[in-house]
């Protein structure tokens, strides 16, 4: 089981980021994008709304003051005007519409009442009158943004009429700084909420992605182990959710399980095959040794019974020697691979043709035609005895495969770095089942065969660093190919047999 997946940012390229980072980052980006858009909309919208509300409230206040104070303005009733003005200012929601000042002036701009009598005395010109330039003389109610003492303000001017004549004005100034502050507060609130949402969202998506991705990381680690051949170290990956990833993990787990079973089966098979081969070898050896041992026992019996008969004794001793020779031959064959001390030597291509002479007589007796093609044109370095033994084995086998006659083909050729020797017969061929076993020791189809020929040949070819291949078709014949690497004739090297070789190019070829 893979441990908790490590989160690591190796690069600034988002395509290389792990999903565990990518998910939360995406969520944060989305939340903030929405917040940004919402913030901009809120700013525009809120500004508009607050301005509208302020303008409406300002107009309402001005009209209220005009309606309730016309007569008092006419009578210059300072106290009633002041009382009404401060009452209306007091009723005003200062948070929604912060009043900078409110004043009732006569038609000359002389203050009759002011919300801040401590700084604006009645009976003199209104200090803020300049701000109302142009509005003040307008016959109707005017709402306009302007400046009062350098600060932006909403200004309202409403005429006070009495008996059809303009006798004064209600002049109001509202602070507009609060609009910016309120909009800022809204934007900050949106920012705070979206930050909170982003934190929660990224945490949730991090947790979720971690949970979702964990099996994938484990899958990767397990697949890596399969590649490294460490199938045994893979534990089943835990499935958290029954979804696409869950299905994938379950399938993967199943696959690993099957692989493990197959491996176990293979190992078991190999062991039993090996045991079977050893069993066959042992029984072959036992059989091969048993035959002469039986004869030798008879000879010993005979020797004991006829110890005085020199002729019989001589015969028995000969039989004993013969049996021992047979046993020695079997043991020699078994040990052939382990005592290869032969040195490599230069071989003239013509030395192969000696083999032709060896088989020609037998072939004629068996009505076998020989197709002998030796295409090797130059001397080559070879373990000559081994090669000759292998080829004789193959040639004899081929002859035996054609009891009714046929064609024996021998074909020696060279390629760039290899030498190829093909021995082909037109005998009955072999089924695949037989082909699979012909290189096992003591496997034979001939009644008097030892079953060691091909096994030994295979060992010799391998010892030369080459390969022995067989192709066979039932009813058509069999073809053995010996392919050995070509050793350059002008070099001295260590062979894989640990034998020092020396070039003999200039010496006369010895057969």
């Amino acid at each position: 089981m893979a441990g908790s997946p490590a989160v690591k940012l190796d690069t600034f390229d988002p395509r290389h980021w792990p999903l565990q980072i990518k998910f939360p980052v995406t969520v944060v980006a989305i939340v903030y994008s929405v917040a940004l858009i919402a913030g901009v909309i809120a700013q525009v919208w809120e500004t508009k709304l607050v301005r509208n509300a302020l303008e409406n409230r300002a107009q309402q206040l001005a009209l209220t003051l005009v309606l309730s104070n016309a007569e008092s303005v006419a009578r210059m009733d300072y106290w009633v005007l002041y009382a009404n003005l401060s009452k209306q200012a007091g009723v005003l929601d200062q948070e929604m519409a912060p009043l900078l000042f409110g004043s009732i002036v006569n038609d000359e701009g002389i203050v009759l009442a002011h919300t801040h009598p401590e700084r604006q005395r009645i009976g003199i010109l209104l200090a803020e009158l300049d701000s109302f330039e142009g509005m003040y003389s307008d016959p109707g109610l005017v709402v306009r943004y302007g400046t009062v003492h350098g600060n932006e303000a909403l200004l309202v001017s409403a005429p006070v009429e009495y008996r059809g004549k303009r006798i004064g004005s209600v002049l109001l100034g509202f602070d507009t700084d609060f609009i910016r502050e309120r909009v800022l507060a809204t934007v900050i609130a949106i920012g705070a909420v979206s930050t909170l949402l982003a934190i929660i969202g990224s945490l949730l998506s991090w947790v979720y992605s971690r949970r979702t991705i964990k099996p994938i990381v484990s899958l990767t680690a397990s697949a890596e182990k399969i590649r490294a051949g460490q199938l045994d170290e893979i534990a089943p990956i835990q499935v958290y959710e029954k979804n696409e990833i869950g299905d994938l993990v379950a399938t993967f787990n199943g696959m690993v399980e099957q692989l493990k079973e197959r491996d176990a089966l293979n190992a078991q098979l190999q062991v039993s095959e090996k045991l079977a081969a050893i069993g066959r070898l042992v029984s072959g050896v036992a059989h091969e040794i048993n035959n002469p041992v039986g004869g030798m026992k008879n000879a010993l019996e005979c020797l004991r019974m006829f110890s005085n008969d020199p002729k019989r004794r001589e015969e028995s001793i000969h039989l004993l020697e013969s049996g021992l020779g047979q046993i020695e031959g079997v043991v020699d064959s078994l040990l052939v691979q382990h005592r290869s001390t032969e040195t490599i030597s230069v071989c003239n291509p013509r030395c192969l043709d000696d083999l032709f002479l060896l088989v020609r007589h037998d072939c004629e007796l068996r009505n076998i035609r020989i197709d002998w093609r030796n295409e090797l044109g130059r001397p080559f370095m070879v373990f000559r005895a081994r090669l000759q033994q292998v080829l004789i084995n193959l040639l004899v086998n081929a002859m035996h495969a054609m009891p009714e006659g046929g064609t024996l083909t021998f074909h020696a050729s060279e390629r760039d770095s290899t030498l190829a020797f093909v021995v082909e017969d037109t005998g009955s061929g072999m089924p695949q089942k037989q082909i699979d076993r012909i290189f096992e020791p003591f496997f034979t189809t001939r009644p008097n065969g030892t079953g060691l020929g091909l096994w030994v040949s295979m060992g010799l070819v391998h010892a030369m660093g080459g390969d022995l291949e067989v192709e066979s078709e039932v009813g058509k014949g069999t073809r053995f190919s010996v392919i050995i690497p070509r050793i350059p004739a002008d070099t001295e090297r260590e062979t894989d047999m640990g034998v020092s070789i020396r070039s003999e190019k200039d010496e006369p070829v010895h057969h």
Partner: protein
Amino acid sequence: MSAWEIRMNGANGFFRLAAPMCLSGACVHMKAYVVRLLAALLIAGSMIGYASAEVRIGITQAMFVKDSLTYDRWAKYLSRSMGQPVLFVYRKSYGEIQELLRQGDLHFAWTCGYPFIKGVQDGFLRYVATPEIGAEPLYRIYLIVPASSTARSLDDLKGGIFAFSDPDSASFRAFAAGQLSQGKPIMSLNQWFPIRFFTYSHAETVKAVADRVADGGSVDGHVWEAMAAILPELTRKTRVIARSGTYGLPPFVASWRADERQIAILQKALLDMNGDREGKSILELLQVTRFARHGDKLYDSIRVDLGSTPMWREAPP
């Protein structure tokens, strides 16, 4: 009608600054209309019961206490002790009450010493009783300025803005008579105070000075002291720079409409007020110790002022 007037106008006095008010809007008109209709029905109902027997007493907002509930209680109390229904009739100024008394629309009124003396001189008013505050039926007139003002006397305020309570009040006459200016009568008000206004309430005069709408004002000393006790944050914004001599407190007066029997009954009812719990409780609300008979000699100081005062025809500008 008059009982309703107390209630409706009661909200317009000193406390009206805090009262919610919206002059525009049909709903308010509608509401006012319904209230008027209900009130008229109630009053009409009560008038059928009492008919001609009701005793009408005039009051103004110059009094410090303008809580209509107090006057309701007082009207009930007096109705019981006099055996006659009593109605308080509220008017803004002493001038209006004086006019009602002159016409015989009111039997009695609680008015200022100055209109009383004028009514006595004109032969249509008689003395009933005078409240006592502490042990005295007397008060002084204070000249107040904003706490931040540098003025030390009335002379320093010349040319400034001035707040008066009521043009027909003793406080205004005392001012005119020079009671607040070392005995030097103020010969030309326009010259002294080209900008001046009447608040028709001593408490509001205090407020006008405290808010610095006016550079100075003249008020009933008792009202200022009472306010100093319950609204110290307001009076702290003012400073008393001169005090007048003593004057008789505003008396209960009878118009020519009231007969001697009614005068005696009201006198007894007022004088007996501190003899029972309810009466004492009402006196407390009115911030009066008790009512007593002092006779109109108490108001001689006003007569003196009158004799030495230039008689301005002062009315709201």
